[in-house]
């Protein structure tokens, strides 16, 4: 089954995949192990045979999970042989569906280690503290990073007054934000107290609606809602402050006095 290229996380039918794989594998068992593996042997043992591609169904994606790395000392002979060369190397290549996309390990790093490139590598050195620190930092970044990602496209939506053509990241997020943004655009200007009072209720209603969606949508949305609430509060406070200043009060008194005088 070809992997879909959108970034939607679909539930994996693990049991189904397994039964499929197992029924396919019987054909492979009968194959003779291809002699091409002797490419890996040490020079005295080298035999001259060519690799013949065997049934690729079992092997899945040819991307070795770190198998293509060259090691420092000797030559990583496994990297020379294409994964399709023989079924005898079944366990060295991950099946499609077993690798995690976007794991982030390979982003900018071609090593399988989590340690930074500048860290001196000593065999069997105790790296407990630094690895834990790196994992902690990565976990924090992941949490805050997902919120930011969510924030920017939907802020754009706000600015454009929720035009339906605004580019959302994912289907369900888009559905959740448009009714909210539409409501927001009409209610924000002018900011009469009564209409602004309704907005938090509407926001809460939408937040409750979105609890049905997957959980990683909820956090960035909540964050966005919280930040918008904060902005609203600040704006209202500013307005109140302006109303309460002595000059504003004097101006208001003047106005009242003038109207009374006209009524004399």
């Amino acid at each position, binding site marked *: 089954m070809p992997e879909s290229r959108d970034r939607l996380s679909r539930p*994996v039918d*693990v*049991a189904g*995949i*397994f039964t499929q*794989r*197992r029924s396919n*594998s019987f054909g492979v*068992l009968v194959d003779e*192990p291809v002699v091409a*593996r002797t490419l*890996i*042997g*040490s020079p*005295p*043992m080298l035999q001259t045979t060519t690799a013949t591609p065997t049934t690729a169904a*079992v092997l899945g994606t040819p991307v070795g*999970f*770190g*198998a293509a*790395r060259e*090691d*420092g*000392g*000797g030559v*990583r*002979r*496994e990297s020379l042989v294409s994964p399709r060369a023989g079924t*005898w*190397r*079944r*366990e*060295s290549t*991950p*099946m499609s*569906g*077993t*690798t*995690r996309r976007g794991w982030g*390990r390979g982003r900018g790093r071609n*090593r*399988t*280690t*989590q*340690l930074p490139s500048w860290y001196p*590598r*000593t*065999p*069997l*050195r*105790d*790296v*407990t503290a630094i*690895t*834990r620190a790196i994992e902690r930092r990565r976990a924090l970044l992941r949490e805050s990073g997902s919120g930011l990602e969510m924030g920017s496209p939907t802020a754009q939506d706000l600015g454009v007054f929720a035009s339906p053509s605004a580019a959302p990241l994912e289907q369900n997020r888009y559905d959740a934000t448009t009714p909210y943004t539409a409501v927001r655009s009409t209610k924000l200007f002018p900011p009469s107290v009564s209409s602004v009072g309704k907005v938090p209720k509407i926001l809460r209603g939408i937040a409750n609606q979105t609890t049905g969606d997957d959980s990683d949508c909820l956090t960035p949305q909540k964050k966005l809602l919280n930040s918008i609430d904060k902005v609203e509060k600040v704006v209202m406070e500013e307005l109140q402050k302006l109303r309460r200043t002595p000059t504003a009060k004097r101006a208001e008194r003047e106005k009242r006095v003038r109207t009374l005088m006209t009524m004399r």
Partner: protein
Amino acid sequence: MLVFRGSPKSNRRSIRCVDEKRRDEEEEQHSHNKKFHIRSLPKGETRILDAPRIVNDFYMNIMDWGKNNVLAVALGSELYLWDSKTLKVEKLFQDVENDLPTSLAWSNDAKLLAVGYMSSKLQLWDHETSKLVRSLDYHTDRISTVAWNGHILTSGSQDKSIINHDVRVANKLVSRLEVHKEEVCGLKWSEGGKMLASGGNENLIHIWESSKMISSQFLHRFKDHCAAVKALAWCPYQSELLASGGGTNDGTIKLWNTQNGTCIKSIETYAQICGLEWNRHHKELLSGHGFGYGGLGNQLCLWRYPSLTKVGDLKRHASRILHLSQSPDGLTVVSAGADETLRFWDLFGPPRADHTKLSDLDGLLSLKTSLIR
């Protein structure tokens, strides 16, 4: 005249009361101990060691923890020893021809270390003197797994054969077993050394009796797995019980009764199983996983025996786990991952105390059986 004794009936009643109370107390103690076994797994590893250049290959067995508390691990073409008591690291050797060690095993008394290579050579190193003692060249291809049974060293190779060497005499080949159709990935001798389990890349497991090995006749052949069988482990509290784990395409842990040749139990883990370790202190089995479906790979899973229900899992490795080993005291487990780390887990403890005996303090504090009313 008046014998101050109380009526026999009332006497009996009170004694029965005390007995009941004692029984209740014991049951409570027992159930308390059972609750104690609803264990909370440690949140993470106790120690992480850097393992640069560790080879990312399922078909190797390049880590072993000996009874001398020394963990041997091959990093590239170099072999390092780590003493778990002194925390010292020692480099045993670097192969002059840059040959890759592909399997290693400490002897039962941990005096010798057997190392098998990619080029098919097999070496014996003496730990005390750190010198090469012997070189055995009977295989024609990579030696993927080695196992000791007293003075017998058994090696399994990519040339599909299993060879038993007697290390007391130079160049003594005891027997050669050529039954597997593909590479021999796993070899494990039972605790008493009576039976040998061998797992192959053609998904078969063979059980051999040490007395009948010369005739190349296996005792059992297990065909149930659908992928290479590298993980094999004999149960320490039930002899003749073998646990086996399959590769990526299989992902099952199976328990076998090697007396009858039947599969007792099978569970799905949906991930490649690279190692199995029995918990000697509690009735549990630990499995180490490589490639897995649905995010179930790269982790350690602890299973209760005999129900094989999951106690918990530990997902700390950043990529697949390749090897699993446990300390000689049976309290710590070490996992080697493709993320170039060795992670130590204090999973198997606490060591089992005799829970049928009440401790003195508990006896004093127990309100039910207080002597002073």
